């Protein structure tokens, strides 16, 4: 009884959509996540940056348990992530994920990629899913490609389809794991534009990226990671203008001046 009341009270104040508490993870002897604490509120856009090998992708992947953790807790809307099984599957269905390598289903057409989740997982009717799917494809600008196969599209187009595929599930939050890192330079912006539009539309987002311009313009908060730990976090302007830690200053210096 008390617990339910507390739960409701928290929800009223805005329970974070995503929360990580004291998360630790090792790959063998390598300590890849060190006591990670992170809260992402509803509608918030959090960008995670840091040098490669800093654990930022791993962090992103623990949120829907594509990576397991050794200790600590991951909470979605205040509820701990369940163990592998039906319950975890339905939690995953509520969180969109966009990968570096797009990962479209190679044997199905573009529109099938977008409707498969709603039809097979959510039980939406084929007609309705198709109608919504086409609308989403229009929104990300690839509606003309609906009947093609993934391999017939450019990387940028494929990634926009992947975003549409996630959106078709009406997710509570979206995770982006380096969504533009595998793209040719001229295709990066077409994907970022879609993400900017999403952010402006109030989507809760965690974005692991090297796109500092995007971080600056769109994010509500920048999280800087190095060596498996969150070193610094703050508003993008503050972070980019006045980083407080030496490690963050070094990182920012190393990526500018080209």
């Amino acid at each position, binding site marked *: 009884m008390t617990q339910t009341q507390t739960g409701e009270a928290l929800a009223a104040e805005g329970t974070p959509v995503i929360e990580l508490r004291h998360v630790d993870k090792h790959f063998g002897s390598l300590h890849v996540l060190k006591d990670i604490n992170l809260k992402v509120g509803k509608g918030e856009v959090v960008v995670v940056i840091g040098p490669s090998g800093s654990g930022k992708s791993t962090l992103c992947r623990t949120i*829907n348990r*594509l990576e397991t953790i050794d200790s600590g807790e991951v909470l979605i809307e205040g509820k701990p992530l369940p163990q*592998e*099984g*039906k319950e975890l*599957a*339905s*939690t*995953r*269905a*509520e*969180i*969109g*994920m966009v*990968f570096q*390598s*797009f*990962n*479209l*289903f*190679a*044997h199905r057409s573009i529109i099938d990629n977008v409707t*498969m*989740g709603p039809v*097979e*997982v*959510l039980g939406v009717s084929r007609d309705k899913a198709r109608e919504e799917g086409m609308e989403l494809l229009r929104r990300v600008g690839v509606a003309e490609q609906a009947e093609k*196969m993934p*391999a*017939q599209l450019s990387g940028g187009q494929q990634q926009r389809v*992947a975003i549409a*595929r*996630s959106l078709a*599930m009406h997710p509570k939050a979206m995770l982006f794991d380096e969504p533009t890192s595998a793209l040719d330079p001229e295709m990066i912006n077409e994907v970022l534009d879609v993400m900017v539009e999403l952010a402006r539309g109030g989507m809760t987002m965690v974005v692991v990226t090297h796109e500092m311009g995007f971080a600056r313009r769109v994010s509500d908060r920048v999280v800087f990671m190095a060596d498996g730990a969150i070193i610094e976090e703050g508003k993008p302007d503050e972070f980019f203008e006045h980083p407080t830690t030496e490690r963050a200053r070094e990182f920012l210096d190393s990526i500018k001046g080209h």
Partner: protein
Amino acid sequence: MSISELLAEYGDMYVQALLGTWWMSLVSFAFAMLLALVITVFRVSPIKPLRVVGDLYVQIFRNIPGVSLLIILVYALPYLKIVMDYRLCVIVTVTLVASAFGSENFMSGINTIGVGQIEAARSLGMGFGKMLRLVVIPQALRSAVLPMTNLAVAVLLTTALGSQVPLSPPELTGLVSYINTRTVGGILPFVISALMYAGTAFVIGVIGNAIDKKVRIVR
């Protein structure tokens, strides 16, 4: 004995032998595909005992000669009060061996899919069964068409094991011994059977290539 004499005397038996070989091949291959699929699902399942059973199955039936297996079925199983018809023994032997190889073909098909699509399926909320049915199996089937075509030819040739047991009517290889124990046929009866095997294998190859062309996944 000339070819015309040979065909005049044994032509009908050749037709029956060819049909018998086709029938045994078809039945064995169909059951082998089904079994291979089941074994492969075992081998990729999250439940360890199933994986062990699947791997063991493949190790056993891929690695013992078909003839030994046939001898076991024909001569050893009756001690366990299991007596099967000779033709059934041949079909079961070929099915067991072919399903082990078939499972290997499916496994390499699965390996081409890559972990990315599997993670995408999981992050859409698909459980193991749905992921297998919607993402993994359809792609494994498509990329296994050519190796399975080879396997179909191997199945056709392996039914020659039927020559080791008394089948009536005999299949293509058995018929050759049948003829040569009755007349001095020389090499000719062999050549006729060989041409029938080769012709069938050629047709299988053409069908396999056509299916592959149709379902191949562009990557």
